């Protein structure tokens, strides 16, 4: 299994972009193979988009989000994997007196199913996958304290489709798209502005999201490298109010690009990746670096069909 990159903006409840053997790539664990990953991620920004306008803010300076994540992936069969992950997240600003937050965020579980596979005479392969996932908050973190909150206390469910084409020489291309439904969250206040209407409730709509990404890469038994481009957008929501803090009902959008590399040593592997937000709305202009170690178990001697 390879890394999942957690892209850290104002929110972190959303698993995005990634590299291989994750809910949104084209690679599976073989039957009875089990992979565990420990990942560290460092993301920071000092500029952000307030609605469509990019700005900085001397009062919050640079926001840094660090996370340590445990993730596991088990091959129920060659065509069905179950994955789970949970991150610990810490946020801080270099200048603000506001209290940085930390804690265990949301537990995610996915099922990934290979619905179609075809091998051409040339040795090229085409596969199609579907992934379904859910996530639930697993600690009592503060959700309405953006940009310091580590998550939004929203339960999510997602469905995605993945198309994967690989050549015999190891080059591959992946395209995927997904839809994430997010439950309403509860804020600590009992009224808030939404589109400049005063809502007399502590219940806030967290916008549902769609995302899509394209990846080009190379994979063999020792090495993997990948470039990707990713886009996501909230399907509803308003903009951050002028010169105000973000709020969970804001509509967030971002396009980003990243690179990833991974190297295998027998049952061990290490990976590194970098990701840069290119454009956005109501998100930080974030730069993220990630490093991870992996350990693979083979619970039976069945030959790996894919790795």
């Amino acid at each position, binding site marked *: 299994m390879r890394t999942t990159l957690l892209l850290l903006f104002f929110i972190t409840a959303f698993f995005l972009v990634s590299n291989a053997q994750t809910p949104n790539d084209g690679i599976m664990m073989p039957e009875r193979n089990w992979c565990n990953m420990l990942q560290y991620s460092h993301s920071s920004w000092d500029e952000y988009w307030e609605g469509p306008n990019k700005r900085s803010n001397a009062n919050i300076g640079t926001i840094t989000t660090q996370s340590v994540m445990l993730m596991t992936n088990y091959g129920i069969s060659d065509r069905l994997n179950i994955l789970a992950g949970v991150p610990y997240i810490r946020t801080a600003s270099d200048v603000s007196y506001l209290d*940085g937050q930390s804690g265990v965020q949301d537990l995610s579980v996915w099922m990934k199913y290979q619905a179609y596979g075809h091998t051409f005479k040339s040795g090229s392969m085409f596969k199609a996958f579907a992934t379904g996932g859910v996530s639930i908050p697993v600690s009592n973190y*503060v959700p309405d304290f953006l940009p310091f909150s580590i998550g939004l206390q929203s*339960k999510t*469910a997602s469905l995605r489709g993945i198309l994967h084409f690989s050549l015999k020489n190891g080059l591959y291309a992946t395209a995927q798209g997904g839809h994430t439904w997010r439950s309403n969250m509860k804020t600590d206040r009992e009224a808030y502005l939404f589109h400049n209407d005063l809502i007399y409730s502590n219940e806030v709509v967290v916008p549902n999201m769609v995302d899509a990404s394209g990846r080009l890469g190379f994979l063999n038994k020792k090495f993997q490298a990948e470039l990707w481009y990713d886009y996501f957008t909230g399907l509803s929501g308003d903009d951050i109010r*002028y010169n105000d803090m973000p709020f969970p009902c804001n509509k967030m959008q971002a396009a980003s690009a990243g690179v990833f590399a991974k190297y295998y040593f027998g049952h061990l592997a290490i990976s590194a990746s970098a990701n840069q937000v290119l454009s956005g709305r109501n998100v930080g202009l974030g730069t993220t670096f990630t490093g991870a170690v992996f350990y693979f178990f083979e619970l039976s001697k069945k030959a790996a069909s894919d790795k």
Partner: protein
Amino acid sequence: MQHTLRNLLLLALLLGFNQCDKTPANAVLEPYDETSLENNGGAWKTYVLANGSELSVAAPEAAGSATYSAELADLKNKMAAATGEQKDAARFWGSNAVLRWHEIARELAAEYNAAPKSNPDGTYSAPDANNPTAYPRFPFANPPYAARALALLAVAQYDALVTTWNYKFQYNRLAPYKNDASIQPLIPANDLPSYPSEDAVIAYASSEVLKFLFPGEKEFLSGRAEEHTESRLWAGANVQSDLDAGEALGKLVAERIIAYAKADKMGMANNQPGVAQLRADATARGITTQWTSLDLPARPPMLPFFFNVKTWNFDQATMIANRPAPPPAVGSAEFETAINELRDMSKNRTREQFRIASFWADGTGTYTPPGHWNRKAAELIYDKQLNELRSARVMALVNTAMHDAGVACWDTKYFYLYPRPTEMDRTIETSTGIPNFPAYTSGHSTFSGAGAEVLSYLFPDKSAELQNMAKEASESRIYGCIHYRFDSEVGLTSGKQVGQYAVQRAQTDGGE
């Protein structure tokens, strides 16, 4: 394997996943029967007007006259032609118009509660009442501004309704549905005389005062007033001449309230050049460690001369005589105890303390602490199903008390210029923004003490709950680490004292 995705979705449902992509709708207030007519309401003590008969309202046409009969016929046509939306509007405004206009005011306060962004050269521009739509928009509805605005609105409604009641019972024109049994009103019928229409009075007293306070919203407010007034025809509750007389009276009262507001010294409350003198005066009194702005770039203090603004329930000499004693000297043992509590809180704040701090934060983009208590007052009024006049009395008593609390608190703040905890120790991290004015005493505590004191008197069965709320609001500022315990405790006591002046008024205003 085909079942996998389905099972996954079932799992999602089991986990309680709720795909509810709808912002909660605000509760619909239902019109209710206004049981008490308050026949003597026209004699209640007014605030700005000399009394309920100072302004005159011409006598209406008699019920049997041809003019009135024509009005009834017109009313029946309008009722018959009313669309579903118009009938909804009739019920919306019929549910307690005093509260509806306070709701509008709270929404505007929240929307205009935005601190201006700094200019590229590190300065800040002040909102300009003469150019309200240019950035930064006028007003910046910070807590003192909101407190004053809600008090002016409440006083306008109250003085206007006392006058209305005076003429209602002087002229005793029955409601249209009492004069013509074929009229079935959309809202509960009552025996209150209908001339002048209390709804038209509320609509125009409220909207005109709010236009003065939020001059960028004139069009919106006129639209609301027109709908409110017309809704009385769709409801079958007033004829046109009831409404016309009410509109004229509402506007007259608003003129008087606006004249009062123009002279209350709010215009000088943001006198930034005067701050140097305030600081020099404090230095001369031996106060050397003085508050400075923690905003980057440093922001001019919020309304440093708000303490000069006219109060409702006592005079300035009384306010100064009641000014809280000095806070503990910076560096004293008492100071160290207080700041150590915050050092500990900053490191070990519990989720519940964070929740309380956020619940009462009422910062940028909210209706502010006076708005929070204004809302609480509205809920109590609605629960008790008070009529419009009595609702207006509650709102006037509690909102004038909170205005007074703001003025008195600002006096204390700018007299002692006490630094915020984080200024004294940068390691103290807060769970809410640090307000841009001195610490001692806590504004939230003072507003809450005043609000709770007045409401406890008016709703004695809720007294324990209200006092607990005020205490929680006061302590929330310690949990947030933006106030020392003595800021909060002294502020709460001072607020209660301010509230007592409004209670004394309530005991003698004729409304007991």
